[in-house]
């Protein structure tokens, strides 16, 4: 299947199951949202899929376009087409955004080959205009001294440039004011395509007003406890999580 499939996945951190027998399927072309209270394993799930060494898969399967990601290194998983926008994007002092993204693109090419530089800069500028980022940001160090909103935009910029087949966006709406949320949402919407699946992690219905999901899932206790259409997000907004998770 094209898209992301999670089958009976269990992830343990320090002996504790943070993801516990989870099942989820997000076909290419669809956008799904995972909602749920804090500490229910949403970010742990994202790190486990991305191959973070501290979030080892205990059992179960993670398939991207039919290929297993379990046991692969984080960079292999990335190069297979999985992109994670981080809840807290990390600063990389001294490494400019342009150089960083270029290095990441070069890492996808066969040994000895490099991206065409003029074409790269043209695309980079285009995406930055789209995200309403100051072109001067290309020479700024990745996320260093950025506001919360700038960091999120920088992650989305990377997503647009790396063109993954599946993107998981972890609380992309946190720290964004309403204008920034609109800009980021527009870019995410533009990035929707029938080739690409997306999974949004969010606490708030607000994001889903801009990026309308095909399905909404509620995660609790390390697994999906309820799934539905976009209307589920509205319901959660008014009722809270207790009626499901309890």
């Amino acid at each position, binding site marked *: 299947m094209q898209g992301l499939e999670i089958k009976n996945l269990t992830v343990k951190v320090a002996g504790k199951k943070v993801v516990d027998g989870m099942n989820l399927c997000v076909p290419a072309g669809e956008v799904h949202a995972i909602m749920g209270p804090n500490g229910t394993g949403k970010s742990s799930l994202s790190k486990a899929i991305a191959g973070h060494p501290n979030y080892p898969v205990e059992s179960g399967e993670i398939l991207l376009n039919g290929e297993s990601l379990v046991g692969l290194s984080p*960079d292999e998983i990335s190069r297979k087409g999985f992109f994670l926008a981080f809840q807290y994007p990390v*600063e990389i002092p001294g490494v400019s955004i342009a150089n960083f993204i270029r290095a990441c693109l070069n*890492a996808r090419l066969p040994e000895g080959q490099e991206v065409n530089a003029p074409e790269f*800069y043209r695309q980079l500028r285009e995406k930055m205009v789209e995200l309403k980022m100051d072109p001067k940001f290309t020479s700024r160090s990745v996320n260093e001294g950025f506001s919360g909103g700038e960091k999120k935009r920088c992650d989305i910029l990377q997503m647009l440039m790396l063109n993954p087949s599946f993107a998981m966006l972890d609380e992309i709406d946190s720290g964004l004011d309403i204008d920034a949320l609109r800009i980021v949402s527009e870019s995410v919407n533009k990035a929707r395509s029938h080739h690409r699946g997306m999974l949004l992690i969010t606490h708030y219905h607000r994001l889903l007003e801009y990026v309308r999901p095909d399905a909404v899932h509620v995660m609790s206790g390390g697994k999906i406890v309820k799934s539905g259409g976009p209307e589920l997000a509205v319901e959660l907004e008014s009722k809270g999580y207790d009626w499901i998770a309890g």
Partner: protein
Amino acid sequence: MSEDKQEQIANLNLDRSTSDFRYAEDYAYDAGVGLNENVVRYISKVKDEPQWILDFRLKALKIFLEKENPTHWASERLDELDYSKIRYYLAKGAKKKKTWEEVPEDVKRTFERLGVPEQERAFLAGVDAQFDSESAYSNMKENLQKDGVIFVDSTEGLKKYPDIFRPWFGKVIAPSDNKFSALNSAVFSGGSFIYVPKGVKVMQPLQAYFRINAESFGQFERTLIIADEGSELMYMEGCTAPKYDTGTLHSAVVELVALKGAKIQYVTVQNWSDNVYNLVTKRGEAAEDAQIRWIDCNIGSGLTMKYPAVVLKGKRARGEVISIALANRGQHQDTGAKMIHLADDTTSNVVSKSVSISDGRASYRGLVYIPGNVKNCRNNTVCDALLVNENSRTDTYPAIECSGENNSVQHEASVSKLSAEQIFYMRQRGLSETEAMSLSVNGFVNDLIKEFPMEYSVELKRLIELEMEGSVG
């Protein structure tokens, strides 16, 4: 698109994989193994030196033999260095050449493999290429000769230009300064003598390339640079050697004199193989309104001890040390800076960044001296260390003495560990662990790499990438 332009520039080949080659030894002059008065006399005789230099050498030898290794503060690894097993002078006896065609084939091939003639054509005003004890090639662009710029090796300098050479030689750094300045003063050979006349600004850099070819050899180049009033100069040196089983010694003395309003920038990229002891004394004197900048990068050698100094002798003089050190497996980079403020309104700036990889150790030793009889002096020191692995080590030993009126010293130091979350973030974008680490380390030193001439900064980034290979795990 300056970054793409940079990539087209030829490599300077300072990396140890491309520089780890050697040619058969075939020397007409060999001072033998070990050090005594006869060795010193032999060197002086082969070089056909005036008596005053022989006297200078013999006096220095006596000081060297009397001084203990400074192991009461420095690494005890100095005690593993056996002075009786070193060869102090090796030369082919051929005269130094002014065209590469005339240079002996194996020596020429060495420097061609290191890319030296290519760089000379590309961006240098002059080159001196030293092979073991003696300079094999030396040339400078014609316009500089017309301007009266002198760029020769130390032997030619002391013989041909004694009026300029002698008043300054051994004055900035006396033989008795330390054990290694005494050693160098006794057996020195090669290195550059540069004089830039009043008001002459040398726009392109002059470069020296120091190459050790022979095993168990000691290279003792001696450099004296005099920038006359209002003149400007940038000098760059690169150092490599093949890897041998036995230790090799490199012990240079570099004296800089910046007269009133002159500017000297001295750039070093040191990438000796890791069994070379690199024990170097570097000091400059800055007169009124003069500026001296040491831009220093130490990547190679097993033990480096080097603390470039500026003595600020005239009002408003400025001294600067920009320093990058990479200490990889088994290496100890013991580097630092000394700023001696002896006049009013003098300023100094030290920025040091070190990276310790594997069990490598980087130490910063600093001295800032501002006595009570001067006023309005400023020093700013920033010293950042990055530890890559769990067993990496760094130390800082700042010595600050500041008194007097309206003088200030600022010292900031930081130690950070390569962040696992940062590496994960970068790997999530598709970079391998090694690529992520080397990009991260390059980022850490990036602001200092920009201080190097572009040709060197490109090379440095590549050298750092090479160092990071094999540092994973």
